[in-house]
C-alpha cells in the first residue's frame, strides 16, 4: 500500500517578498495517476519546478525522496537522469524541426564519429510514435501538427528518456474533446506500463475520471490528499478544498435592466489569414445597453477570431458582414476607427497582446486614448498621472504607485490595468475575451464586480469564456458558437452547462 515512488516533505520556497510554498507535502504511490488541483497562483507549478530541478536544491527548504532515497537536483538534467520528466503547459517543441528531431533534441542518437544516425533515430521515433498512438511521419515538421498531436510528441519525447515519473502541467487545457479523450486514454495505457503520472489540471471531470488520488493545494499549502478509488469524492468536494468556500459566493449578484441595442453584427464572415477556410461563418449577434452577453464556444470555434475581426478587422481577411452601433451602420476598418466607434476589446492574452510589460501603469492606461490627454500632439503628463491614479484607486490595482512597471504586477492586477485602459477610451461596448484567465479567485470576484458596475452604468458587455459556469454566473444572454457558426442563443435562466455544451458541439456532429 505505502509504496511511494515520490515523497516531497515540508517543501518551503520563498521568493523575495512572497512565500510561494509553505510546508507542502506530497506523496505519490508507484504506478498511480496523481492529480494536483488548486486555483491559479496556488503554487502547483512552483511545486513541480522544485521537483524537476528548475529551482535547484538549496533554493528551497524541505526534502525530496525519490524511489526510496533522498535526491537533490541541481537542474532539469539531474531530474531527467533519474526518470522524472515534466511536460509544461506551453509546449517546448521547435516548430521548424521534424518530429524525430524534436523527440531526440538534446538526447541525439549518435552513430559512428559522433554524427547523428538518422536511420536509427527515425526507426526509434516511429516506434515511440506508435506507442503514443500518433500516426505521423517522423520527418514531418512539428509546426504542421495540431496542438493535440504536439502534446503526443512531447509524451513520446518523454518516453524516449526512459521516464518513470511523468509530470503533465494542464495537458488538456488547449485540446478539444476528442484529443483530450485520446490523451487520457494514453495516460491510462502508460499507467499499465508502470509509469507513474502527476497531472496538474483544472478540469475536475477529467480528474475524477482517470486519477487515483488528488492533492489539493491552496495558497501555497497542501490542503488535503483524497483517494478517488472509493468513488465518493465529487467534483464539488474538490472545489470546496480548492477555494475554501462554496461556489455560491463566486459571482456577485446583479439586477439586469437591458436597454437600447448598442452593437449589432450581421452575417459576419471571416477567412483565415493564411489558410483557405472560413473561421467565422455568417455570424450575427447583438448586445444591449446594460446587458452582459456571453459567447460560448470550444477551443477553435472562432470566438476570439470573431471578436478581433469585429474590432477594427485586427484578424483575418476577406471580412464581410455589417456592423451597427446604436442602429447606425459603421465602418470600423482599423482599430483606431473601432475605438472611435465606441468598441473596446480586451484580449485573452494580456501579456502578449494587451500590455506593454516594460512600461508602467500610467503609460499602459493611457495607451489606447492618448488623444484624450493631448492637445495638438502634445501629451499632458500630469493629467495622465491623474487619470492613471483614478484608475488605480477605482479598480483597486494593488501597486505602490502608477509608475510601477506592469510586468511586475500579478495577473489579476494586470487584468485591471487592461480594463482601465479600455474604460479610459470611454467605450459603449466592451468585449472581454477570457477576462479571468490565469487570475486568482479573489481577483476574479473583483473583475465580476467591475463588469457589474459597467453594465449598471449603461455599458454593453460581451464576455467570451471557455468556462461555462463563468458565463452562467455573469451573463444575461449566451450565444453558442461552433465551428464559426452561431448555433443558438439562450437567456441565462434557460441555460445550463448541458444544453450549452450540446449547442457548442452541434455543428461538429452535423459536419462530422
Amino acid at each position: 500500500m505505502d509504496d511511494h515512488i515520490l515523497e516531497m516533505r515540508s517543501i518551503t520556497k520563498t521568493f523575495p517578498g512572497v512565500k510561494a510554498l509553505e510546508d507542502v507535502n506530497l506523496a505519490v504511490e508507484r504506478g498511480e495517476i496523481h492529480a494536483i488541483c488548486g486555483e491559479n497562483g496556488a503554487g502547483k507549478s512552483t511545486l513541480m519546478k522544485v521537483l524537476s530541478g528548475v529551482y535547484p536544491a538549496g533554493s528551497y527548504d524541505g526534502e525530496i525522496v525519490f524511489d526510496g532515497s533522498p535526491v537533490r537536483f541541481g537542474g532539469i538534467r539531474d531530474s531527467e537522469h533519474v526518470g522524472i520528466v515534466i511536460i509544461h503547459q506551453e509546449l517546448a517543441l521547435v516548430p521548424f524541426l521534424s518530429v524525430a528531431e524534436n523527440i531526440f533534441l538534446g538526447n541525439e542518437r549518435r552513430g559512428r564519429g559522433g554524427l547523428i544516425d538518422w536511420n536509427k533515430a527515425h526507426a526509434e521515433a516511429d516506434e515511440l510514435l506508435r506507442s503514443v498512438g500518433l500516426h505521423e511521419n517522423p520527418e514531418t515538421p512539428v509546426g504542421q501538427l495540431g496542438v493535440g498531436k504536439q502534446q503526443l510528441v512531447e509524451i513520446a519525447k518523454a518516453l524516449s528518456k526512459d521516464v518513470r515519473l511523468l509530470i503533465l502541467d494542464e495537458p488538456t487545457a488547449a485540446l478539444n474533446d476528442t484529443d483530450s479523450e485520446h490523451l487520457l486514454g494514453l495516460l491510462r495505457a502508460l499507467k499499465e506500463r508502470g509509469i507513474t503520472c502527476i497531472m496538474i489540471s483544472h478540469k475536475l471531470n477529467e480528474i475524477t475520471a482517470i486519477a487515483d488520488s488528488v492533492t489539493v493545494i491552496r495558497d501555497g499549502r497542501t490542503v488535503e490528499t483524497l483517494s478517488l478509488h472509493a468513488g465518493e469524492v465529487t467534483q464539488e468536494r474538490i472545489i470546496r478544498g480548492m477555494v475554501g468556500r462554496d461556489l455560491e459566493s463566486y459571482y456577485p449578484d446583479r439586477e439586469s435592466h437591458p436597454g437600447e441595442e448598442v452593437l449589432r453584427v450581421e452575417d459576419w464572415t471571416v477567412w483565415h489569414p493564411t489558410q483557405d477556410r472560413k473561421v467565422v461563418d455568417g455570424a450575427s449577434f447583438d448586445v444591449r445597453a446594460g446587458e452582459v452577453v456571453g459567447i460560448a464556444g470550444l477551443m477553435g470555434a472562432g470566438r476570439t477570431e470573431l471578436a478581433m475581426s469585429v474590432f477594427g478587422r485586427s484578424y483575418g481577411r476577406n471580412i464581410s458582414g455589417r456592423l451597427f452601433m446604436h442602429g447606425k451602420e459603421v465602418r470600423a476598418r482599423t482599430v483606431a476607427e473601432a475605438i472611435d466607434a465606441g468598441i473596446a476589446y480586451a484580449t485573452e492574452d494580456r501579456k502578449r497582446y494587451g500590455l506593454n510589460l516594460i512600461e508602467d501603469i500610467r503609460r499602459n492606461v493611457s495607451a489606447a486614448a492618448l488623444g484624450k490627454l493631448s492637445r495638438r500632439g502634445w501629451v499632458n503628463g500630469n493629467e495622465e498621472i491623474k487619470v492613471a491614479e483614478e484608475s488605480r484607486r477605482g479598480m483597486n490595482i494593488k501597486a505602490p504607485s502608477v509608475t510601477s512597471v506592469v510586468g511586475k504586477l500579478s495577473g489579476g492586477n494586470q487584468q485591471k490595468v487592461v480594463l482601465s485602459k479600455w474604460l479610459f477610451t470611454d467605450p459603449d461596448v466592451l468585449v472581454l475575451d477570457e477576462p479571468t484567465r490565469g487570475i486568482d479567485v479573489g481577483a476574479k470576484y473583483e473583475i465580476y464586480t467591475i463588469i457589474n458596475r459597467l453594465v449598471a452604468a449603461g455599458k454593453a458587455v460581451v464576455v467570451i469564456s471557455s468556462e461555462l459556469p463563468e458565463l452562467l454566473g455573469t451573463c444575461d444572454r449566451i450565444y453558442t458558437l461552433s465551428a464559426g457558426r452561431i448555433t443558438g442563443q439562450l437567456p441565462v435562466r434557460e441555460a445550463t452547462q448541458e444544453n450549452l455544451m450540446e449547442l457548442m458541439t452541434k455543428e461538429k456532429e452535423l459536419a462530422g
Partner: protein
Amino acid sequence: MTRTAPPQNEDVTPAASPARSLHTGSSNVRDLLSRNLRTSGIYIAFVAIVALFAVLTGGTLLQPGNITNIILQYSYILVLAIGMVIVIIAGHIDLSVGSVVALTGAVSAVLVIREGLPWWVGVLAAIAVGLAVGAWHGFWVAYVGIPAFIVTLAGMLLFRGLTLQVLDNISLSPFPREYTRIAAGFLNGLLGGYGYDAFTLLIGAIAVAGYAVSQWRARSAKIRYQQPVESFPLFVTKIVVVGAVVMAFAWQLAHARGLPIVLIILAVLILAYGLITKKTVFGRQVYAIGGNLAAATLSGVKVKAVNFWIFVNMGFLSAIAGIIYSSRSNGAQPAAGNMFELDAIAAAFIGGAAVTGGVGTVVGAMVGGLIMAVMSNGMQLMGVEQQIQSVVKGLVLLLAVAFDVYNKRRAGASR
C-alpha cells in the same frame, strides 16, 4: 540642455511603499540617486570618464580649445545618434546611415562645387535626398514588412553605390566659405570680445534662464496636480548645479573661438527631439511599438505610419549629419561616413537603449555618444595607438550592454 526625468520608482516591490510625502528633504536625495541606477549609471560613468581622462591628459581634455574640438569632431555622430535611438526604441535598426551621410554630402557637393549653385541649394537638396532615402526605407519596413536590418543593409550598399555614381568615383572640394561655416564657423565678437566672447556667455545665460523657467513651470504644474515634487532647496540646488555646469562650459567656449554654429544646431535638435520623444503622442507611440508591437496595434496605434515616419526622420537627420560632415571635411569623398552607423548605434546602446526595443532616451544616447567622443579624444591626446582605441571602444560598448542585461535580469529576479 539636460532634462531631468520625473522621479521614477522602478524597483517596485509590493512591500516597499513608503508614504511619499510632498515635501521631504533627506529621503528625497536618496530617492534621486538610487531611483534608477540604470539611467543615472550612465551619467555617473560619463563624469568618471571625463575625470579620468582629464587627469590622464594632464588637464588638456578640458582646455577650451579641446572642448570645442570634441564638439566639432563628433557633432555628426551625435546628430545620427538622435535618429538612431528613436529607430532602436521602436525595435528597429538602421545600418545605412553612413552611406546616406556620404550620399547627401555628395549631392550637395555636386550642386555647390561642380555646378556652382549657392550653398543653401546644396543644403536643401541634401535634406530632400535624406527625406527620400528615409521614405524608401520606411516604405519597405512599414508597408512591405521587411525587417529593418535587411532593408537598411541593402540601403547601405545601395546608397554607397549611388554616392560613387554621383561623384564619378572622385572627391570634390573645396566648398565655398559660407558652406564650410556650418561646421567650422563660430559666432564670435557679435557683442564685442574682451579676451572672451560676451555673446557666447549671453547665450549660455539665456539657456540657463530658460532651463530654470521650464523647470519652475513643470514643478508648479506638478504641485497643481498634487504630485510629489522634490523639496525646494533640492530643486534650487539642481538648477544651480546645472546652471554652473552650463556657464562653465560657456566660459570655456568664450575663451576659445566663441560659440560653434554646429553646437547651436545640435542643441536645437537635442531639445526638440528630447521633447518629441517624451511629450508627444508620436513619441509615446514609438515607445509603445517597441515595448509590445501587438499590444500597440490593438490599442489603435497606426503602427505602419509611425514606423514610416521614424525612418523618414532618420533620413532627415542623416542628411543633417551629411551636411555637417561635408562642411567639416570641406568636400565630398566616395568613402565618407564609413562606419558612422556603428558609432551611432553604439552611442544609443551605451546610452541605455535596449536591444529588444521600448527603452532608451535621446539624452542617454547623447551621453553615450559623448562617452565615446571623450574616450577617443582623450586617447588621441595621450597618443594611444589607433588599434588600442578601437579595442577600448569595443569593450566599453560590450560592458555597457552587459550592464543593461544584468540590470534587467536582476529586476526580473526580484519578482
